[in-house]
Every structure is written in structure tokens, then in C-alpha cells.
């Protein structure tokens, strides 16, 4: 299963990076969304997928899934939620001020004069 997941994560990253490199601010934001999904699945995969039961103590269960990656993912999910929300608002404020979501028009001259 790890093989499948690794390839899947690769696809998620590919799609995310492709979107992030595009010119439309909207696509970029969607790309970051995919990026964080990929990262979260990766943590889970890296912990190993072989666990037989959820990591909750109940009678007669001994083979748990690795709880630590799950805790890490939970933290990461919440953080990326906050950041995505922030970014979303930043994007639409930028659009409101600059009247465009084209990254080529949002380029700075990086103060080259």
C-alpha cells in the first residue's frame, strides 16, 4: 500500500507544484491546498500503514496504528487551515487593490532603479 500511497503523494505534489507555478492567483491558492494534502498523507504513510486498529485503547486490541504521525498530522492540518484562510484573504485583498489576479501583473520590479 505504501507504494501506491507514495505514487499518489507524488502526483499530489506534482499537481500542486504545477498549479503554484501558474499565473493565476486562484490556481496558486488551490495548489497550496493540494500541497498540504500531499504533505499530510506523506506523514501518515511514513509512519507505516499496517496498523490494524485505530489508536484508541479498547479491549482486546493490541496492534494499533502509529499514533504519533496522526497527532503530527492533526497539528499540521490545523496550521495549514489557518495559513490557507489567511492566504485566501490576502489574495482577495490583493485583487481588490490591484484589480488583477494575474501574477505577471502583480510582479514587483524588485526596486531595480
Amino acid at each position, binding site marked *: *500500500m505504501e507504494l501506491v500511497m507514495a505514487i499518489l503523494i507524488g502526483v499530489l505534489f506534482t499537481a500542486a507544484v504545477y498549479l503554484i*507555478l501558474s499565473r493565476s492567483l486562484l*490556481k496558486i491558492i*488551490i495548489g497550496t491546498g*493540494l500541497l498540504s494534502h500531499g504533505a499530510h498523507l506523506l506523514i501518515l504513510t511514513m509512519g507505516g500503514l499496517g496498523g490494524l486498529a485505530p489508536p484508541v485503547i479498547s479491549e482486546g486490541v493490541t496492534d494499533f496504528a502509529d499514533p504519533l504521525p496522526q497527532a503530527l498530522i492533526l*497539528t499540521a492540518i490545523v496550521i495549514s487551515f489557518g*495559513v490557507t*484562510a489567511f492566504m485566501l*484573504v490576502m489574495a482577495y485583498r490583493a485583487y481588490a487593490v490591484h484589480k488583477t489576479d494575474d*501574477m505577471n501583473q502583480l510582479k514587483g520590479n524588485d526596486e531595480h532603479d
Partner: protein
Amino acid sequence: MEFVLLIFLPIVAALFIPLLFRKIKGIHTGWFVLAVPVVLFIYYTTFIKTTMDGGHALSELQWIPSLGISFVSYLDGLSILFSLLITGIGALVVLYSIFYLDKNKEKLGNFYVYLLLFMSAMLGVVQSDNVISLYLFWELTSISSFLLIGYWFTRDGSRFGALKSMMVTVFGGLMMLGGFILLGIMGGTFSIRELIAQSSTFVGHEFFTLALVLILLGAFTKSAQFPFYIWLPDAMEAPTPVSAYLHSATMVKAGLYLVARFTPIFAASEVWIWLVTGIGLLTLFWGSLFAVKQTDLKAILAFSTVSQLGLIMSLLGAGAITFHVDEALFSFAMFAAIFHLINHATFKGSLFMIAGIVDHETGTRDIRKLGGLMSIMPVSFTVAFIGSMSMAGLPPFNGFLSKEMFLQSMLAIRHFELFNFSTWGVVFPVVAWIASVFTFIYSFYFVFKTFAGKQKIGKLPRKPHEAPFGMLISPVILAMLVVTIFFIPNVVGKWLVKPAVMAIQPYQYSHPSEVGVHVSAWHGFDSPELWLTVGIVLIGGLLYLSLSKWQKFYGIQPDTLSLNALYDTTMMFSEKGMNRLSRIYMTGLIRTYLLYIFAFLSVTTIAMLFLQDAFAVDMSSFSKISAYGLINAVILLLAVAFVLLSKTRLGAIISLGAVGYSVALFFVIFKAPDLALTQLVIETVSVALFLLAFQHLPKLSDHGEKKSHKFVNAIIALGVGVTVTLVALSSHSQKLVQSISQYYKDTVETEAGGGNIVNVILVDYRGFDTLFEIAVLAIAGIGVLGMIKLRLARKESSDENK
């Protein structure tokens, strides 16, 4: 008394100068300043007695003892000689400046602060026994020189010259620091004395030659040697007292001091002798050649200084030969070097002051506008004449003596048999002689074009008259010294020169009196140097008279090919060129920047993966593929494809939501109920947020992105994807250590009092993560509030209108 503190006396005095300048308007601030060098001069003369006996005095002030860095005032013959020059000439220059600079028009406060700063720095350079503090003072001289050159900072020339001198000398200083550090590594100490003591062990060390070259870079830049001399002519923008002090008598000699000081360590090296002698001679030749081209009085003097510094440098190089050959033939080169150093300080100082007087009284320094001032300014003329003739190397002036010795040393080099000198040695006297001819020419050129010939008073901006008495005191004193030294060279030699020579060549002498050099003006008719001098006078005189005929040949050299042009181009390149260069890759587009990052990431990581043999896929460690997992993977893939392909923003959000939900399903499949719950809720709230925000955003569009761009994007994206996958497989296949999570499973009930391990990890084992993760959420919340409510964009006019 800890006389090391005296190094700082000028700086301490400088602290009071602005106050004195502001409070006491009636008296020229210079009078207060004058006391400092005078006191110091008198104090340092008391050491002559010690050094004459080959002794030295030592005083130490710790700075960073842990790293072996301290301020050490180490007074031996060489240091005392320089200290006396610095304070002596310093006193005269301050005296001169009192009349040169108007107390009402000039910002004397600043001027004297810089000057005193310089004085401290210079004393520090010549007295420091610790290379690091030597470097400290070295840079301080560069800085104070920068400030002094830029004293009239509204003039373009001043700023240009200040920057140029600082760039060149600081560059040299930094390289020198590198050399010092290498010495420190080789010898395990920063003390010059200790380094010298163990210098024999350095030869053959891998850093030896490198250290040598680096230190020489420092010396050459400071002493305006070829090709670094270019800063010196531009430094003439400084007020004349400064030129006289820094740029002829003292600061430029710091490089010579350095070479002299490190001779005992490096003399063993062939490279040292070749570089010091060769570059010195080349500089001598070059400087004298181009001095004749100049039309500005101070520029002539600047080039002549360059040339004379080259002369002394070559002598120092020749003097190092004694390390290899113990023959009397070479023994006086070092003596000649030190002797000429003193002489040069006297005659060049006076000449600079005269140039300043001419400038001050006529309003110009352009030699084409000057002429016939002899009758109007007789005293100035006399001083200028004495100085020039000494510079040209004619009797009865001190320059003659040292020039003779110089020629003698250059002739002697022919007889040196090591390091290929037997083949190339003959070049040295020839070049030296030609350079001396030009020296003769520019000396005459300087004094006679200014003071003899027709008067062109009409062309002068001001009506000339003799300088005031006060301004003449210093040049006259110096001129008198020029003459006096000619008659008592051996007294000077005994008191000052020989102790210095001994300090430079400790491996040869144990007492100054052992330096077996006796200076005399007359060596008999059979001495070759006499005939060389006669030749110089004859050929030089001839060439001087026909000067107008051949001076125009200097025009052949195009301006673009000069070293100055090189510097200008470099500086231009550093502004415009770098700007253009940086524009190429700093596009301001985030896509470009991310392309760099992603490309670097995938290329390096994949390369490392295979170079380090880290790629491994171990199927046995993988859990078996489940059908629902596979189906869900297909669903996820489809959703991702739909995200990529969707043409509408709603479609994109829906499919992003679908991705999120299938991720949640994965969490279900892989037994992570907490994650599934959280992911589901977050996904929904996110979708709501997206919908909320998208009402403010435009329709989805790729803005006509080019196919080629899309292709590049796709390649890079694929690269990142492959990287992530490969590393994931490899690291999962190499689970080399048991995970720590067993502990959580064992203790969650007994010690943490919970059942849901993930939740207990979140609030207990790793609660700290959670505490700050909610902080992130909280900041995001207030951030969004701030972003939406605070809009300064409305207020500002707009920064885009430029």
C-alpha cells in the same frame, strides 16, 4: 608609565576638539591640536637612546587575551623612527594648517578630529607588535584618510577620491588580514616578535607563500605600488596639509613599514625578494614616467610620491637579499631604504606645502597657468628649489646621498646569484637609471615651470603674493633639514637609521653599530654610481629642455586603457553592470523564484539519492494493498485531475473539496478516526471560506499563459513529484530504528489517564505543539481581521506612480 596608552592620546584629545571649536571662537583650534604631536614627539625622542643601543621598550594593554589579541607598543629602532616622523611631520603639518585653513570658513572641528584620529592610527600601526591590532590601526588609517579626503564633501572629486582610496586600501588591508591570520595559524601567535623568533619553521609551510602574497597586497595598496597607485593622485582632493601629511610623509609609508617589519619572516622566500624589488622598481619607473605627463602641481607630486615609494620598496627588497648572502655589497640597501625614507619625508613634505601655498595664493594648481612666480614668492621658490633638487638627487641635498646608495644597490643586485637574479639582475640597474632620469625631469618640471619663465599673472584667479609668515615656517624647517642632513648623514644614520636597520635585519646584527655603512658624498671617480648620476643630469637636462617636443607623446595612451579607466569601469560595472545582471534573474515574478527553488530541490535531492546510494525499495516492509485503498486512490487521482482541468472556479473548489474528502477517507482506511473527523470538518469550513472569498475574486483564467511556460512548469512539477515519491519510498524502506510510539501505547492509560492515544498526545505528551498551533490559528484570526479592517492603501496616493 604604560606608554601604549599614548597611542590613544590623539583620539582622547580628539574628543575635546569639537567642543573647543564650538566654544572658543577667537583662537584657531589648530593651536590646541598642535600640542599633541609636539608632546608626543618630545616624548618619543627619549627612546632614541634605548634604540641606539639596540634595545627596545615594550608596553602592553590587553584587549582580547583569550584570542591572543592585545595592544602592544613595541618600540625598537624602526618604530621609533616612524613614530618620530609621524609626530614630527604631524606637528609641522598642524602648524601649517593653522594658517592654511580659515578658522571662520572651515569646519575645523571635524578636520582636526580626523587628523588626530589618523595620528593615533598611524602610531598604532608602527608600534603594534600584535598583528591584529596592527590591522585595526591599519584600517583606521584608511578610514581617517577617507574622511580627510572627503573633507570638502560637496565636491564630486573629493567624494570620488575618498571612495577610491578607501576601496583600494581597505582591499589591501583585508588581504593583509588574511595573511596575518595565516601567520597566526602557522606560528600559533599573533605577536610579531614571537613570529619572527620562529620564522625559520615557516619556510615550506603550505601557507607560507600565500601569507606572503597577501601581506604584500596590503603593503602595496597602502604604499601606492603598481598597479594600486591609482588612488593616490585622486587623494589629492584632500586639503593640502592632509596631502603633505598622509599622502606623502606618513600613511603611504605604512606599506613600507610593513614590508620592513616582515622582512625577517619572509626574506627567506624568493617570491618576496622578486615581488618587493620588482614591483618597487616598476612603480618607480611608472610613477616617474607619468609624473611628467601631469599638469596639476599636486598630481605631479602624487606621481613623484608613487615613484619614490617604489624606490624605497625596491631597496627593501634588495635589502632582504642579505638574508641569503652575507656580503657587504648588499648590506647597505636596507640602510639606503631607511635613509631615503627619512629624506623623502623631508623634501616631499616641503614640496607639498609649497604646492599648497601656490594654490592658496594664486588660486590654481594648474602648471600651464603658472610661471614666473620666482620674483613674487622668493621664499617659496627657495624652499621648492631645495626640495626639488633633493628629489632629483643633486648635491648638496640629502636626496643625493640616498639616490647614490640606491643606484649602488641596484648595481649590486647583478651580483646576486640565487633565484635567477644572475640572468635578470641586469635589468634592475637599467630600469633604475631610466627612472632616475625621469625623476630628474619632473623635479625640474615642477619647480621651474611654476617659478621660472614668463609671468602669466593675468590668467590667475587671484593676484599672487608671498605667503604669510606662519605658513612658511613648516616648509622652511623642512628645507633646512634637507640641507642639514646632507652634511650630517652619519649622525642621522647612527641615531635613527642604524637602529632601524637592525630592527629589520635582526638575524644579521646584534647591535646597531654593527651596521657597517658609512655615508659619504664622494666615492671617488671610479665609482660607477657617480657616472650614472652624471649621466642622469646630462640626459635629464637635455630631455627637460626638449620637454615641449615630446610631452605630447603621452597622448598616445588612450584614456580607456589606463588603470584608472579600469577602476572606473569596475566601479561602473559594480553599479550598472550588477544592476543589469541582477535584472536578469531578479524578475520580480514569484514563478521564477519558485522555479529556482523547485529545480534546486529536485535536482540536488535526486542526485544525492543516487550518489549516496540511498535509493532502496524494500517491498517486504510495505503493508498489503487493499482494494478500498486502491479505489480511493483512483478517486483521489480523478479529483486531482479535475482540479487541474477545471475551467471554472466553482469546479475547482468542488474538486478540491473532493480531494479533501478522499484524503479524509484515506484517514478512515488507515485507522485514523481523529484525523478523519478533523479533516472532514476543516474541509467543509475551508470550502465555505473559499466560497466566501471567491465572491470577491474574479473568474478563473490562466491569463493566456504561454505553452512553453506551461511545459516548463509541468517538467519542474514532475521533478518535485518524483523526488517526493522516491525519497518517500527510500526512507520507508529503510526504517532503521524502532519508532518511539510504543511508549505512548504502553503508558496512555496508566500514566496519562486517557484512552484516545492521538488526543492524549495532543493535549498531554505533545501539548506544547498544540498550545502553539492554536496560537497560529488565533494569529490567523486577528490577522484576517486586521487585513480586512485596516486599509492604508486607500489613504496613500499610490506608490505605483513613479
